[in-house]
C-alpha cells in the first residue's frame, strides 16, 4: 500500500537565504554557502493495507517530513515513494482554510481540496457539522472561531472522505477530552473498515493503545520499527537520552 524505498530528503539551508533578485545582484561575487540538512536518510518502510502505524521521535527527527513525502507534498531527494491509493492528509494546525469565508464555504472548499465532488460533500455535509459540533456556527466566518473549533472542523472533513489512507499529524492535542474520544472512536471504525492510518504523535499512550506497528525515527533514520510495546520501551529507556 505505502512503499518507501531508500528515501532521503535533503534540505539545503543557505547560510543566507536569497529570495530576491536584489539580493542576488548585490552578492553577485560572493559564493553561496549551504548547510546540507538530511531530514531523512535512506529510509525504507512498508506499510500494508489496514495497518495502523504510529510514528514517534523527538522534535526534528523527520516525522512530519515523512508524512509530507507520503502525502506527495514533498518530492524525495533520492529514492522512491509509492502510494497506490488516494491519501487524505491531515497535517498540522490551521490546515488550508479560507479564513474570511464561512464554515459552510470552507467545508466545500476543503472537501474539494481533499478530492471530493460537490454531491459527495453535500451528502456528508450534515455529518461533518454534527461531528464537529459546529451546528450554531455554520454561517460564522472561520477566523472568528476558536482554534479548537477550527481543528475540529478540519478533522471532521478529513475523516469524512472515503479514503483508503489517512495521515494524521499531531493535532488531537488541541481538542478537548470529548472530541479526542470522538477522534479515537472514528479511528477505530477506520481500522475496522480496513483503512490504513499513519499517525504521528507525542501521545505515547494513544500510540500504544491504537497502533499495530510503531516507527521510531532518530535524526532522520529509522531507529526501531515493530511491535508498539518494544519500540516504545526503547524510546523511553534512559540510555537514549
Amino acid at each position: 500500500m505505502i512503499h518507501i524505498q531508500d528515501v532521503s530528503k535533503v534540505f539545503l539551508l543557505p547560510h543566507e537565504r536569497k529570495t530576491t533578485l536584489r539580493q542576488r545582484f548585490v552578492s553577485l561575487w560572493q559564493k553561496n554557502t549551504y548547510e546540507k540538512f538530511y531530514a531523512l536518510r535512506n529510509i525504507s518502510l512498508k506499510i500494508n493495507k489496514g495497518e495502523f502505524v504510529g510514528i514517534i521521535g523527538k522534535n526534528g527527527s523527520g516525522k512530519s517530513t515523512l508524512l509530507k513525502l507520503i502525502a506527495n507534498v514533498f518530492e524525495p531527494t533520492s529514492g522512491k515513494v509509492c502510494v497506490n491509493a488516494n491519501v487524505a492528509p491531515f497535517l498540522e494546525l490551521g490546515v488550508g482554510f479560507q479564513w474570511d469565508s464561512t464554515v459552510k464555504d470552507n467545508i466545500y472548499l476543503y472537501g474539494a481540496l481533499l478530492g471530493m465532488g460537490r454531491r459527495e460533500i453535500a451528502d456528508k455535509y450534515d455529518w461533518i457539522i454534527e461531528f464537529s459540533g459546529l451546528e450554531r456556527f455554520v454561517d460564522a466566518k472561520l477566523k472568528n472561531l476558536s482554534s479548537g473549533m477550527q481543528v475540529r472542523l478540519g478533522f471532521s472533513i478529513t475523516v469524512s472522505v472515503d479514503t483508503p489512507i489517512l495521515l494524521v499529524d499531531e493535532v488531537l492535542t488541541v481538542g478537548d477530552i470529548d472530541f479526542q474520544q470522538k477522534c479515537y472512536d472514528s479511528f477505530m471504525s477506520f481500522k475496522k473498515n480496513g483503512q490504513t492510518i499513519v499517525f504521528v504523535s507525542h501521545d505515547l499512550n494513544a500510540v500504544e493503545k491504537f497502533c499495530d506497528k510503531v516507527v521510531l525515527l532518530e535524526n532522520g533514520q529509522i531507529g526501531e520499527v515493530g511491535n508498539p510495546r518494544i519500540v516504545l520501551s526503547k524510546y523511553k529507556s534512559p540510555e537514549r537520552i
Partner: protein
Amino acid sequence: MSSYTETYKQTNRSGRKNYLYLTLVMAMTDFKVKYDNSALGYLWSLLKPLLMFGTLYLVFSVFVRWNVENYKLYLLLGIILWNFFAEVTLNSMVLLEGKAAILKKIYFPRWIIVISSSLTSFLTLFFNILVFFTFFTISGTRFSVSNLLLVPYIIELYFISVGLAFLLCALYPKFRDIHHIWEVFVQLGFWATPIIYPVSIVPQKYHTFIFLNPMARIIQGSREALIGPGGEFLAIPNHIIIISFAAALFFAGLFLFNRLSRSFAEDL
C-alpha cells in the same frame, strides 16, 4: 518497481477526478471573499476603476481635449481591459503566499491556484463589461452585430494574462521582488499602451513599436469592435499575431510553472 509507480500515478489521477470542481470552488470562495459576499461589495469595488476613469476623463477630455469620438467609452473600455490584465498578473504572485498553508499540506496540481484566481478576475471582468454596456446604452450608441467581435479579443486577453501569470507565479518563490518589478512594468505598460490617448497622436513611425505590444492590439481591436470605426485591427492578421503571442506565453508559462511548482511547498 516502475509498475508500482505507474499504479500510483494512475490511481492518483482517477481518484482525483474532481479538479474541475476544486478549481470552481476555489474561484467562487475567493470571489465571495473579495466582494464580502454581497452586491454592495461589488459596487464598492467599482469605486477604484470608476474613480480612475473619472480623473483621467477630466484631465484628458476637459483639460487636454483629445479629438476622439466617444472618448468616454474609448477610455472606459481601455481601463477595464487593462485592469483585468494587471489584476491577473499581479495577483498571481500575491495569491501564492496566501495559499502557502494549503500548498504545504495537501497535494493537488498547483496550476489550479492560478486558474481559479484568474477565473475570479474573469468574473469581475464580466461584470465590468456589463457596466461598460450600461454606459454604452446611456450614451446612445447603437448595438450592432459587429459588437460580437469583442469575444475573441476577450479570449485572447485571458490567455495572455494567464500565461504571464504562470510565468510570474513560477518565478516568485525564488525571486520575491519580482512583484515590485512587475508593478513597475504594469505602470509602464499602462502608458505605453494606447489606453488614455488615441493612437492617432502617436507619430506614424512609432506605430510598429506600439503594436509590438499585444495588449495594444487587443485594446485597439476591442474598440473597433464596440465603438468603431472598424479598421485593420478587426482583420484576421491582427488575430494571428495576438494568438501567436498568447499561445507562446501560455505554453512557456505552463511549462516553466510545471517545472518549478514541485518545490513550492519547500520554497514558500
